């Protein structure tokens, strides 16, 4: 079975690339640690004795300072790229990204409200909780707005998503005006950043992994949905039910990532396109390849973001690196179609 073999080979290869990126990233920082030492430290829990030569401070820097942030970058990148593949396939639109149904805008409203007016929120929701709740409420609201009589035409969903994003953008702008002291914190959140990552952040974003495992068996459905809904139906896909499930899982995965990292643009849009050029449109290969590619891309981007003399939000790096690269691809290869 060719496709399964290709999926396995690509996944294995990209997993190795990701492992390499993690080691390189953990070696880079204010205190430079040789990659060999990093690798030994990381392997220590798996292979007892390998890390015997690693010094205590190095061990602490790798595991307590750098690794949570690297792991967060990896799972957030994994989540955004996974959701991006699903949304692009689902909408049959190359401009679709994980936030297309308003997940990021909803998260932004929730997070900014929690920063600007923490007391106004019920149940003492923190920034993360408010962002997560805002994201899911928005996605669900957009879905309801676009549904009629048990059907949800994707064109309506797309337009409803854009309208709601615009509306929520106005709300965020208004809150920004009244943010006063907390303006810097708000802007930092909106640009997307992974600093101050903790293992509990990683745990929240890691919902992407079960989400991915749910989506993987739907790869063939995504392929068939690319033919259009009428064709998909005549090929035995329960179109509306499948769309609901894909939309729900992709939204939850995105919401969890955005809640802990803020709005990191471009990963979910560009990574699937790049991988589609490399591995082709078959979702059984594309979905795992994009997820791992997204993880690697964000780990490397965040390394750049924190490596300079002054740390910058990773969202700036992903856009600054991703947009020119995407434009390069656009001019040299056929990216116009899905």
């Amino acid at each position, binding site marked *: *079975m060719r496709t*399964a073999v290709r999926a396995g080979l690509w996944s294995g290869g990209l997993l190795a690339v990701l492992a390499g990126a993690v080691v390189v990233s953990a070696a880079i920082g204010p205190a430079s640690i040789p990659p060999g030492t990093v690798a030994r430290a990381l392997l220590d829990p798996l292979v007892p004795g390998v890390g015997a030569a690693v010094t205590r401070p190095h061990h602490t820097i790798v595991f307590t300072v750098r690794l949570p942030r690297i792991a967060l970058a990896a799972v957030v990148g994994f989540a955004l790229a996974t959701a991006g593949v699903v949304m692009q396939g689902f909408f*049959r639109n190359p401009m679709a990204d994980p936030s297309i149904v308003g997940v990021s805008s909803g998260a932004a409203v929730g997070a900014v409200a929690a920063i600007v007016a923490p007391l106004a929120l019920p149940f003492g929701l923190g920034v993360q909780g408010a962002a997560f709740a805002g994201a899911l409420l928005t996605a669900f609201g957009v879905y309801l707005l676009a549904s009629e009589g048990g059907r949800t035409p994707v064109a309506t969903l797309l337009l409803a998503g854009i309208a709601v994003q615009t509306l929520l953008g106005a709300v965020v702008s208004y809150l920004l005006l009244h943010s006063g002291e907390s303006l810097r914190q708000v802007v930092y959140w909106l640009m997307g950043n992974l600093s101050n990552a903790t293992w509990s952040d990683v745990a929240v974003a890691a919902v992407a992994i079960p989400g991915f495992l749910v989506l993987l*068996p*739907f790869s*063939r*459905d995504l*392929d*068939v949905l*690319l*033919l*259009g809904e*009428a*064709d998909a*139906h*005549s*090929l*035995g*896909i*329960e*179109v509306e039910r499948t769309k609901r499930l894909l939309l729900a899982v992709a939204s939850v995965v995105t919401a969890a990532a955005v809640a802990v990292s803020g709005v990191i643009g471009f990963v979910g849009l560009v990574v699937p396109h790049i991988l589609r050029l490399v591995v*082709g*449109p*078959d979702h059984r290969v594309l979905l795992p390849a994009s997820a791992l590619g997204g993880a690697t891309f964000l780990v490397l981007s965040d390394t750049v973001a924190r490596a300079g003399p002054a740390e910058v939000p990773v969202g700036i790096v992903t856009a600054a690196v991703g947009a020119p690269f995407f434009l390069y691809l656009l001019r040299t290869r056929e990216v116009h*179609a*899905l």
Partner: protein
Amino acid sequence: MTEAEHAREADRPLLAVEDVSVTLGDVPVLEGVSMTVDRGSFVGLIGPNGAGKTTLLRAINGAITPDEGRVVVDGEVVANLDSRTASRLVATVPQDTTLSFDFDVRRTVAMGRTPHRGRLDPWTEADERAVECAMERTGVAEFADRPITAVSGGERQRVVVARALAQETPLLLLDEPTASLDVSHQVRTLELIDDLTDAGTTALAAIHDLNLAARYCDALVLLADGEVLTAGAPEAVLTESTLRRAFGADAVVTRHPVTGSTHVTALPDRDRESAADGARVHVIGGGASGSRYLQALSAAGYAVTTGAVAAGSTDAATARRLGIETVTVPPQAPVDDDAAAAVRERVARADAVVVADLTVGAGTLPNLNAASEADRIVLVEGRPFAERNRAGRAGRRAYERLRDRARVVAPEDAVSAVTTALEASPTGFPLEPP
């Protein structure tokens, strides 16, 4: 099952649409539609735009649940089936498929196996066989590894048919399978479906072109305004009166001289037909070339004359049947001076002359020369003249002289060209074909 039950099973139509009504929004699209399709037959669904053909197909494949009535395929009520089960009974070739991504042809055909596979089922021997067989039958195997975006429109159509065949359903639905194809691919597509039904598949196709439908389908269902107007054998369905009722247009129904199938020629609508009142048209034909214009023009109300034609030819017989004034010469004889004078006289009296795409021999040259003197000439050009010229250089010179003054049209446009020509003044006629 006993033998008698088997026999009953085989007798029962594969598809039965029973009193189906569908309303989309507030618009009733189908009202009480009933029809059947027998096993192994190729049935054409015809009717004007907006008659409900596509909606009926969508009701049959389960995309739409009828408001009233039911669709039964192979003993199962489609509306009661989940999408996957329904897709193992009915495969659909849609009017246009979005194929703007780089799946290769084989992968696209393999998508036809979707209803046969669970989400986690591996690809089986049976799946592989179905795909290979479907590609073989449709002739797409030779470009199986090309990306679907890199094949032509006609090839893509066959890929989509292959995908439907890979579904291995008893019933195949096709929505306008020939709509975006050129003439040769239209014929190839319908011949493919015809072959498939000979091999046991049952097909129901919405077809726009009445003549292609008549030629290839075993039976036709004529849908108009959401109702079945008539159904049955092509020659029973395609009559001048049913076509007038369904399409609101006048048409002439004849037999096609080559294929022998029922042939429909649409006539200009009634307002323009008044131009025919009293107008005289002379047809230059010969052999069987003029018959369809004799029929069409006289049905359109023109006073038609023809000649010179050989006694006993198809054209002569058609003219006699229609009561058309004819200049005849004996079989095999050339057009002599007397006959040529008679033709010139008819041409002079006529308001327009139609020259069929006839074969020109030395003996019939006087016909062409006479036609060149007419005020309004409609020259039908189907086959290139070089293939129809048996009179050498003289034939070519006479034809070129005629062509310089004529309105050159395709066979199916001859009647409307006459109408248009008669509305224009003779002086307004283009001397050079545009």
